[in-house]
């Protein structure tokens, strides 16, 4: 995918970073995303599994979902000046919704304390339902951007990439 030619807004009203800079920016975003979406959850789940605590979600699912969402977020950033931004934003939100839905299917955490006969169960389905608002709003935003790019290509450049 390439950046459209100079037939859009007047030159000087925007300044789009080169593909190299955008890839660099995406790579920098990769670091916190990998830590938050993959590193921390997998570390917590691995620790719980090592303590004999049953997991509400398989570690492989968390890893796969984290990789997919991270890749989509980075791709969305790199291709922000193109018409692919809207679909990528929708895909990112949709992947997050699917991920949260998988968590919602068994939104119960059971902790059994050995030798004491004590079981603690925590239900957090309402929290997950509320969290679903976040990607739902992002999905709507992506849809609006898709429509905007389809009806008025490059219209958003001066505002997304001010000089």
């Amino acid at each position, binding site marked *: 995918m390439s950046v459209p030619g100079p037939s859009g807004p007047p030159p000087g009203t925007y300044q789009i970073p080169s593909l190299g800079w955008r890839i660099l920016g995406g790579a920098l975003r990769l670091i916190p995303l990998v830590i938050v979406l993959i590193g921390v959850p997998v570390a917590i789940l691995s620790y719980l599994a090592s303590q004999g605590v049953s997991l509400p979600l398989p570690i492989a699912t968390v890893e796969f979902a984290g990789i997919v969402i991270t890749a989509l977020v980075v791709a969305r950033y790199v291709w922000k000046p193109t018409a692919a931004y809207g679909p990528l934003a929708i895909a990112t939100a949709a992947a997050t919704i699917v991920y949260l839905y998988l968590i919602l299917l068994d939104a119960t955490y059971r902790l059994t304390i050995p030798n004491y006969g004590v*079981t603690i169960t*925590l239900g957090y389905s*309402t929290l997950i339902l509320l969290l679903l608002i*976040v990607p739902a*709003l*992002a999905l709507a935003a992506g849809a609006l951007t898709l429509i905007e790019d389809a009806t008025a290509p490059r*219209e*958003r450049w001066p*505002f997304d990439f*001010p000089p």
Partner: protein
Amino acid sequence: MASPIYRKPPTPPGIYRAARALRRLSAIAFVVLILFVALVGYSAVQIIHSQPHLGTTTSTVEPNQTVDVATQFSLTNPTYFSIQHFALHFLILNASNVPLLDARAGPVSIAAGGASNLPINLYVPLTAAGESLLTEDQYLDWNVWGNASYAYLFTVSIGEATERAWGAPFDDLQVSVGAPALVNGQLEVPVTISFSNDATFAVDGSLNYQVVPPSGPDCSQGSFGLNVPSGTGFDETQDAAYATGCNPAGGQVDSEYVGNGFSVSLPSEPIP
């Protein structure tokens, strides 16, 4: 008047502003939810630090042939969120895994910054499956579940399964009937009753008994006065009038504990 150098930035189109507003709203919702969850987590730790606890437990025999195990659960909520629908569910099984009790306490709601004492009265039956509680020390399976909603978002359930020792008020109850003898021209029989009061309450009242042969009318009957403090034993013999010609061999001794306004039948003791 506008500066000739300063040029007012163009206003973004409506659809762009709508998309931007949605993105910002999404980010704000995410941050608010994360902060809320962090605050709830911190508050939950405060509840644990407030040390919810069971009060002192008392046991009394009730007129309806039950033992009332009474206590209360104290819970303080020093947080910004209320605890809703807090309830406890008890299931007690005897040593043979037969359910003795299935009871609930609550629900109550505890407002933010409030405290609550949840009264708990467990009426353990002393008849049918609970009859052995009168005469046998045993371990009972206590299963307790606590349920509550916290901060409107989380449901919390805590379950505990423990074995608790039960001390019987007539532990190791033994009744023996001696040989009849003529005393002052009247036929009498020595009846000995012994037991250990291992319950947490005193046994006050009387123990009425009947010596019942395999067939025919009772051979003898009588009553022991009881004032047995918790943790002490009882061993007494008394001579009771005996029906001429009665042969109790192969029969049984039926007994009944009569307290203040109630009576409980004790398991029959066979006569060899």
